């Protein structure tokens, strides 16, 4: 299970990167990056997962005293949460950029925006 | 006299001698008059010989034994001077040498007919020689125009323009005649009678008037120092 998630996560990352690096359309690039982000998050979860343990919620089912042995590491999940939020922010910003770029040039082809170079 | 005269004659004068306005490096414009700015306008003076007669005699002897001819062939007679340098005539042994610059020469051999154009140069060169200086007229043409007596372009009597010390007649006179003429000149010099330069200075106005009468494009100061 963990292996599958890890594998899937990396596959998503690579797919996302491949997409971002091969699609000239800015929107497609942004989508590709979200895919990669999702992959990264999956990897994060997978790394934090421990077989046979429960979700890190301290309630009646998991007494505090046994928490250390019964629940999985909660940290990666917290990290994923943060990462998702940040990813959202970045994606939103990129989309805003896409809008501005399209407004300025009427095109979403990234190779059209090369006035700045050398 | 000079200024009006010059102004009048400027008609024929070359551009480079006209007055011109130039701008100095500081941006201020001023006039340059080449004739007065670039040429000395002093008149020649009569310079007497040494005070002591015996010294002047010694000097005259030295002058007679050291005739430095200006190497300026003014006409066809120039060809008769070259043999004087050869082994056959070897004028050097009589103290006669050729100098390429009038500054160092004291004998002007006007060799043959003298076109007006050349006369201007001859005058200039003559005036650049130092006192005492001698003129030898070579050939008939310098005496009376010779075969060119009616030419539109040659002067006829050299001594109207320059003080001639010795004429050597002939058309052409042979090198031997030249040597004889030089010997005659030496005699005159030793006798203290070869004062052509002083004569020229004394009668400067007369000579100038004669010269300017034939030279219409007079584009130089009156006396070429």
């Amino acid at each position, binding site marked *: 299970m963990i292996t599958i998630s890890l594998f899937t996560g990396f596959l998503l990352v690579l797919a996302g990167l491949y997409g971002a690096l091969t699609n000239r359309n800015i929107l497609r690039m942004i989508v590709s990056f979200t895919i990669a982000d999702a992959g990264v998050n999956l990897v994060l979860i997978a790394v934090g997962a421990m077989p046979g343990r429960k979700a890190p919620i301290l309630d009646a089912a998991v007494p505090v005293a046994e928490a250390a042995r019964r629940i999985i590491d909660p940290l990666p999940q917290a990290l994923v949460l943060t990462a998702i939020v940040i990813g959202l922010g970045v994606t939103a910003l990129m989309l805003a950029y896409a809008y501005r770029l399209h407004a300025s040039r009427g095109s979403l082809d990234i190779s059209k925006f090369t006035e700045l170079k050398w | 006299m000079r200024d009006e005269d010059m102004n009048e004659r400027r008609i024929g004068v070359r551009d480079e001698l006209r007055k011109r306005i130039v701008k100095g490096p500081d941006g201020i414009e001023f006039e340059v008059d080449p004739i007065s700015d670039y040429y000395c306008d002093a008149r020649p003076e009569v310079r007497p010989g040494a005070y002591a007669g015996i010294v002047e005699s010694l000097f005259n002897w030295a002058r007679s034994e*050291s005739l430095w001819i200006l190497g300026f062939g003014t006409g066809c007679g120039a060809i008769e001077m070259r043999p004087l340098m050869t082994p056959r005539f070897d004028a050097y042994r009589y103290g006669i040498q050729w*100098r*390429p610059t009038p500054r160092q020469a004291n004998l002007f051999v006007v060799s043959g007919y003298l076109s007006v154009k050349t006369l201007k140069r001859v005058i200039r060169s003559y005036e650049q020689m*130092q006192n005492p200086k001698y003129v030898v007229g070579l050939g008939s043409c310098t005496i009376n125009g010779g075969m060119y007596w009616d030419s539109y372009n040659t002067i006829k009597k050299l001594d109207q323009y320059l003080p001639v010390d010795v004429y050597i007649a002939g058309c052409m006179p042979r090198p031997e005649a030249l040597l004889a003429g030089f010997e005659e000149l030496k005699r005159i010099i030793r006798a203290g009678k070869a004062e052509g330069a002083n004569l020229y200075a004394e009668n400067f106005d007369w000579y100038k008037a004669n010269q300017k009468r034939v030279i219409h494009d007079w584009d130089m100061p009156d006396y070429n120092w």
Partner: protein
Amino acid sequence: MTFDWMKIPYALLTLIIVVNYGLLLTALVQKIAARAGRRHGIPIWQNYIDLVKNYALRTSISHGVMYYLGPVFRLTGGVGLLLFVPSLYGSEMFSNLSFAGDLILALYFVFFGTLGMALGAGESGHPYSAIGVSRGLSQVTAAELPLALAVFSVALQYQTLSVTDIVAAQQGGITNWTLFTNPLAVTAAMFSFLGSMMRPPFDVVLAPQEIPIGPPTEYHSSYLALMQTNRALFPVAKMVIYMNLFFGGATSWPIFFLKIFLIYMVSALVGVVFPRFRVEQSIRWFLVWAVPVGVLAILVV
């Protein structure tokens, strides 16, 4: 330091002897050259007459202060050069003013007159003067080189810069002369000598008709007389150095006269045989033929 005032009359005596010898010698050499052309040539005393004549000219012009001083520089250079070098070996009388300096002084003082003369000629504003100076300076930069090398070789050989000491080292027989002990240096020096004597093939500096005798073209009257005096004096002064360095010096005036005459004849003989070089040709000639000999002289000494 105490100064021996008697040196002054002795020095003047040297000067008078050398000037007269120089006037006669140049006339003699001219005569010999004339004989080579089957002419009689000038009378032997012609130089004196010319000198008097030039002094006796009644007028003169001046182009300015430097022009005026040019001949003075020139003759000062000649007289100084003569007096800074002892004329006769072993003679207190004719050691002149050599206490003032050694060989290097003499070598560099050569340029004093040249430079002053060039400046004077320059002020005349005459382009021919400038052209002549340009040629002369260009040529001398190459022509002086073998001499400098030779002199240096000789200084190395005798380990001294004192002319007297160098002459002293050559005493005691003709084989002791530098000519035989250091032939390469002498060869180089004599090449240089040819270049400095203003005789063919190195006399384009004074080309008589093209640039009417070059630098002195505007000089006349007494200026010219001073320069003529120098023209008699200067070559002799220069040859005194050659004689002292390479040909055993002289212990008496007759030997002095003889050696100087023979040295002069080298240049005269070459001069009557060879035609004129252009300046760049002569520079190349010195660099290609004379300098290597000098370098060799330095390396093997």
